[in-house]
């Protein structure tokens, strides 16, 4: 005897969150049944493999039917096929768009193209995330990217509205879109220690301070492209390292302020010129799109690594960057205070986030 057909349809769609997660994680029905058996599903009656298999099949079918609706969450709220309570819809969407941080770390900053998608089996092998799940996550990134690409208005808000995501998840997606658009390099070995959340924070900083949208929020792509004019202005900062007087003056101001406040003072004093050159050079190069991609690697190589080798603490770093930024205001001949603040504000918070003790 074999079951030829087995369906169970309810008026108010039941979704078992556990099974949903297994489906999202790309488990096959049989594997999911195994996991559920091991998990000890319900003590009410012995849940035989048969019962579990039937239930899992039903749920998987429901999820598959829902999937095309989940691709456009606005439709999920207005469809008639499944009667799903609002809080359940929110859960379905939130879980569907959730991603594994190991996976996103692999594709962050890569072009969301067919080529990248083809390489997903390697990513899957490397991260241990099933290929099915990798594809779903990748397609989610791509879908969000495509939708918000042409929209005006703030990125996070657009994502939240079109995909009904929570604020946190919408911010993460904004970061992913931002990275994919600017193709920031994140895969280099030196950057491996950084988590997705580190990058997401930095992306947030860049979006709110360096993009076109930071000044005018009615422009297309306002949150994805860095403001060209600002990048041009950054070239002016070079004076801080090219003008010897200015450089010395800056150094002495910073050193006076730091003296006696930190154990790493000697190293700071010795390295000041190198570090300052590093930061200002990064700023000056940002007009070049290629250099923009290396923004994070440059920060690590030119600034964070030297500090590590000098064993600065996070406190030292904060102290140094605060005084380094503020001292520039006192320099008489330095006229680019506004640009400097806009630049250093972001740099400071990024470095502090990226500087793991």
């Amino acid at each position: 005897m074999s079951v030829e057909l087995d369906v169970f349809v309810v008026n108010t769609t039941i979704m078992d969150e556990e099974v949903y997660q297994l489906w999202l994680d790309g488990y096959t029905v049989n594997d999911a049944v195994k996991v559920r058996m091991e998990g000890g599903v319900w003590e009410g009656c012995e849940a035989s493999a048969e019962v579990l298999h039937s239930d899992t099949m039903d749920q998987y079918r429901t999820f598959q039917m829902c999937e095309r609706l989940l691709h456009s969450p606005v439709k999920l709220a207005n469809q008639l096929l499944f009667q799903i309570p609002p809080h359940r819809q929110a859960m379905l969407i939130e879980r569907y768009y959730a991603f594994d941080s190991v996976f996103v770390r692999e594709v962050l900053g890569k072009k969301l193209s067919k080529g990248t998608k083809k390489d997903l089996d390697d990513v899957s092998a490397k991260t241990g995330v099933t290929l099915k799940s990798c594809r779903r996550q990748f397609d989610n990134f791509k879908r969000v990217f495509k939708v918000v690409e042409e929209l005006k208005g703030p990125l996070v808000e657009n994502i939240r509205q079109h995909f009904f995501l929570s604020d946190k998840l919408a911010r993460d997606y904004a970061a992913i879109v931002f990275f994919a658009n600017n193709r920031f390099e994140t895969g280099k070995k030196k950057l491996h220690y950084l988590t997705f959340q580190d990058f997401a924070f930095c992306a947030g900083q860049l979006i709110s301070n360096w993009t076109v949208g930071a000044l005018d929020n009615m422009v297309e792509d306002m949150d994805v492209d860095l403001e060209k004019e600002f990048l041009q202005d950054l070239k002016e900062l070079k004076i801080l390292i090219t003008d010897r007087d200015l450089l010395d003056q800056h150094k002495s101001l910073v050193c006076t302020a730091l003296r006696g406040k930190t154990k790493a003072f000697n190293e700071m004093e010795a390295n000041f010129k190198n570090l300052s050159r590093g930061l200002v050079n990064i700023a000056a190069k940002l007009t070049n799109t290629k250099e923009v991609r290396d923004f994070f690697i440059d920060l690590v190589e030119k600034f964070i690594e030297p500090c590590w080798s000098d064993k600065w603490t996070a406190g030292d770093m904060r102290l140094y960057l605060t005084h380094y930024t503020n001292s520039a205001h006192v320099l008489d001949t330095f006229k680019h205070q506004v640009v400097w603040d806009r630049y250093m504000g972001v740099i400071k918070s990024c470095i502090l986030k990226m500087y793991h003790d």
Partner: protein
Amino acid sequence: MGSGGSVGKEAGPLKTLLRQHTQSALEQREFPIFTLTCFPPGFLVHVGGVVSTRSVKLLDRIHNPDEPETRDAWWEEIRQEIKSHAKALGCHAVVGYSESTSICEEVCILSASGTAAMLNPRFMREGCLDIGGSDHRLSRQPHPGMVGSERGEGEVSSTWLGFEDASPPSCGFVHIPYDEFNMPFPAQLTYCYHCRRQKVPDVLFTTIDLPAEAEVTGKGCLIQARLCRTKKKAQGEVNATSISNLLPFMEYELHTQLMNKLKLRSMNALFGLRIQISVGENMLLGLASATGVYLSALPAPGGIQIAGKTPSDLSYDQHISTIQKRIDDTIAKNKELYNIHPPECIEEVVGSPIPDRQRSSRLFRSTSESSDELSELDLSHGKKDAFVLEIDDTDAVEDIQSLLTDAPIPAGFYSCNTEVMPGIHNWTSGLQMFTSVRVYRLSNANLTNQGLNKIFTDLCENLLKSLYFKLRSMIPCCLCHLNFTVAVPEEELIQVAVTAVAMSFDKETQQAADRALTRGSGENEEQLQFSMELCGESTISNNQPTAKPSGVPESAMVHSSRAPSVDYGSFADRCSTWLELLRLKAHTIRRGSVKTSRRTQLLAHSVSSSERCSPLPEGRSRSLRSTRSLPCGAPVTVVKMTPLSFLPGTRIVKYLGIINMFFIRETTSLREEGGVSGFLHSFIAEVFAMVRAHVAALGGNALVSYSMKECVFMENPNKNQAQCLINVSGDAVIFIRESDQEAIPPLLTSRQTSGTGADGTT
């Protein structure tokens, strides 16, 4: 099938007179048959038992297949037979009646069944349709003021029923309607355990819902008997004959199973009995479903005693005593599970035409005939007489095994195939209507009857298990109106479809209620669940018997003022008067609703907006800067669906009409749609969605009395094709939560509506 109660010698002359009158009133009618399953209190005077008829016909013998004459004649025959069965049980009417067919090739089984009953003539008279009481029509929920006053009300209604010696309503319907000295079948009678005045049978099988006034001990449960019989493939007359020959045995087997399972659960009555026999090319399937309860007015059931035919060797005796012990344990466990603890009563067996010894040794197995051998066994089981099961062949062993292997229902679940479960009152609004369809392929063609039986039983048990598992999040809950439909769509295929509603209830208050309620008084709430318009007068006559029902048109008033002289015209006349009244009433309601329609819409709107289906939090601001607006239409209305006639915790304020829809779906890309399961799953989901959309379009927010009447599925996997036909129906309604009742505009209340309606009719 079934046993009944009696009109005792002490029945007064008035009652006899009444009986004659009613009989004549109903007998003048060609078919005194009602498809209704629940009735206003007092409507059912006595219930005799189940009457059923089956007839095997050959469809290719119809000379003129396009004309209905032949088929009409068939059904007429069947209804006549049903009527005569009812008469044999001393009843003049049939209630809870239903007809069904099962067709395979040219052979067709026509089936009809119902419950023989004596009805209260009062309700046959005109004017009992009280228009003023349209409130009742709109709500089958307990009226707060009436809960707990059952006893008092019972007294009143028995007086207005017109006979002094009327039985108390809580037990009257179980009293036998037939003559105890001339019983239509052997049955054991006792004095009613409730009133001690009249005779009742030991068990009662019915097709109706449990009457609200009935007193029940403990809780009920779904009882199923399943049977599979192989038959040779044949054609035409030969086929029809072999089916006809099998049918009585199947009925008997099903009945035996039901009886044994009932005893095993320590219960004494079945309600909502539905026996379905489906014919296939090489087998017949029988599925009987009913809700078992312990009626307090009937005697406690005896146990089950196992007897070996040849008590020869020791190991065999051992085996028997093991089984006996398991049965006794199961009975004890079930008593706990269903909370059946009737007070001990002295049993008085009276009026049984069969001598005691002989009766109790009556074997409940079709195969055994050897009563002589058994006469020496001790047949008493405790104080009660026991049913004896003889295991004289392998069938019996398996039957007993299967009796015991019915999986116990998981803790926190109850199930029944009636509207609601006796003993459960505090439903929450948690509600989940579902449909499950399974098709099994029998891989082995040469199966024995036993093998098939086992497969079919497992199939049903597994399906139930699956349901419990899927609905575990609703615990504590009750699966109500469990409706199984079996079919043999093709050779070697068995299709089972189940539709039911899972309703959760409040455990805390339930326990409190269980403690607080005295025996049987728990039915009070349910009693009022079906205060239909028919009983509208009862409330009025209780208070002021002379009051004219408001809103009754003049013509009807003339008739009703003729009471109380008992006048029985032709039943058809009464019916037409009813219909006329109904029409008028529908009209008045429509009229009334014209004025209130705006309010109604507002109400519906407020209901829908509070339950709209969107995860977008209220008040979240759209981006002012966004130029592309989102495709957000009107929010989707939540539509509840239930096979029951009510929604717990709510009041139905308006009926919007019947929804009856047929859908046919075909696919030529079966594999691409996820195979047969994927195809049917999305089809049923779409059917639900379309029904909901229709209800919403009518301004409703629920569909009650939902049923899936037809689900025919055919496939041809080789061609990558499948077809399915589904017929669903139900009533679209607007409901409001009980807690919101204060918020209803007064215009919507029935009195107002009917008032304006009455103005309109003059």
